[in-house]
């Protein structure tokens, strides 16, 4: 990977961390520059604005989560097992790299005005949504999942996981997220199965 690209990725990581903990508006470019040990001027060589940085981050996080789901899609196994794997991957990410999912829930969904130009519709989350499309399509094609509207199924699956991670972040849950994987996977399977 070339040097500029590597540096850009480090900036994305640093900004992601700050945005997801402090929020988009409370974080400034000087804050990010400081976290990177860079000058503010140099930061602008990489990203021309805070909004642009925010859009790049959502694509970046979506690519990372999408790649994990793609791995599940490409594995052998039935849909029931794959649901479990996707839930496990999602919760694992929420535990070990919570910034990605927090960013999605607390920055991307909460500040749509920042993303309206350039992240219309599915544009910035397409790598992740595409993998779920493939997952659902194949689940129906092999006869395991009930055929229904994509968003009804998508909302049930991702809304549930997102909501659960949110509860976990609020400190409401008594146990560790991983503890709930089997039960939640089964609930999702039962709701979506044929």
């Amino acid at each position, binding site marked *: 990977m070339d040097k500029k690209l590597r540096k850009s990725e480090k900036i994305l990581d640093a900004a992601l961390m700050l945005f997801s903990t402090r929020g988009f508006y409370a974080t400034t470019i000087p804050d990010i520059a400081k976290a990177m040990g860079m000058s503010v001027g140099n930061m602008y060589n990489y990203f021309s604005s805070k909004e642009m940085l925010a859009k790049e981050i959502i694509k970046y996080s979506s690519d990372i989560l999408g790649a994990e789901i793609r791995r599940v899609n490409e594995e052998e196994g039935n849909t029931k097992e794959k649901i479990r794997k996707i839930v496990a991957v999602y919760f694992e990410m929420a535990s070990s790299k919570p910034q990605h999912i927090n960013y999605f829930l607390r920055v991307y969904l909460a500040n749509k005005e920042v993303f309206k130009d350039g992240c219309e519709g599915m544009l910035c989350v397409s790598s992740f949504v595409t993998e779920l*499309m493939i997952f659902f399509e194949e689940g129906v094609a092999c006869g395991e999942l009930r*055929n229904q509207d994509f968003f009804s199924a998508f909302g049930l699956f991702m809304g549930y996981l997102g909501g659960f991670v949110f509860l976990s972040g609020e400190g409401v849950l008594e146990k560790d997220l991983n503890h709930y994987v089997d039960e939640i996977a089964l609930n999702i399977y039962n709701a979506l199965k044929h």
Partner: protein
Amino acid sequence: MSQKSTIIWLQGLTCNGNSHSFFNYPQMPSFAASFEMLYHPLLCGAEDFLSLLKSDTKFDFLILEGALSHDERLIERFGIAFYEILDVLAARAKHIICAGSCASFGGVFRLRDPQKITGALFCGKEKGGYWLEKANVINISGCPVHPRWLVETLLALHVGEKVLLDDFLRPKEVFSYLVHHGCLRNEYFEWKVDSQQLGEREGCLFYEHGCVGPMSHANCNKILWNGVSSKTRAGSPCLGCTEFDFPRVALYETQKNMSLPQTPFGISKRAYYSLAGVAKSFKIERLEKKLIDENH
């Protein structure tokens, strides 16, 4: 070309559609200059047929129209079991040409009893139809066959050209194209704007109206029908009549899994869904509007 090629046209289980399509070939005199029709069931009578059957003359083309069966209770001609006729004629023909999807794959008749009713070399997509194997068969599928597909293949063979075939033994010259190629609605397909109703000028028919143009092999939108139009140009979906699974059920509905349609031929789901998702994220006003707006 001094010598004319000779043709015997034999019908199995058929609606006559391929015959009628063939009779609409616009350059019939030039066809007649190169070919002699020894027998066609809509043109000739029993006498011609029986004397041909009894003779041992070889001929160039046996054109089969309609689905085939070994079961004599299902088909006979002039009191003779169909399989006896077919076996005798097939042995004397240089080329066997299946005209239309029924002779090629079994078509609509096959759905009644796939064990007994098949195409010449295929039963749907499975190899093994009326014959298990045969080297001189060409399938020119379609419901009906386009007169130019048939005549141009015959002409190529008549002048000794090699006719390249695809995996379903269809001439590549015709069947390496997709119906999607040349459809006037391609821009609507790109931006995922579907027609509101059949027959409209605007919109693509892929998402709601069952169009399988992107996965159906045929050059309908390149050479057109009657030289003027095609289904999709006229605002009707391509029904995939050239494919082994024709006719499917619910032809005018797009079959979807969780709202996701089958992807175009040779395009991966990942590639297609990503691109389609991106395209759908934009609303292109020009494409939402009427092509010809009376008020502007």
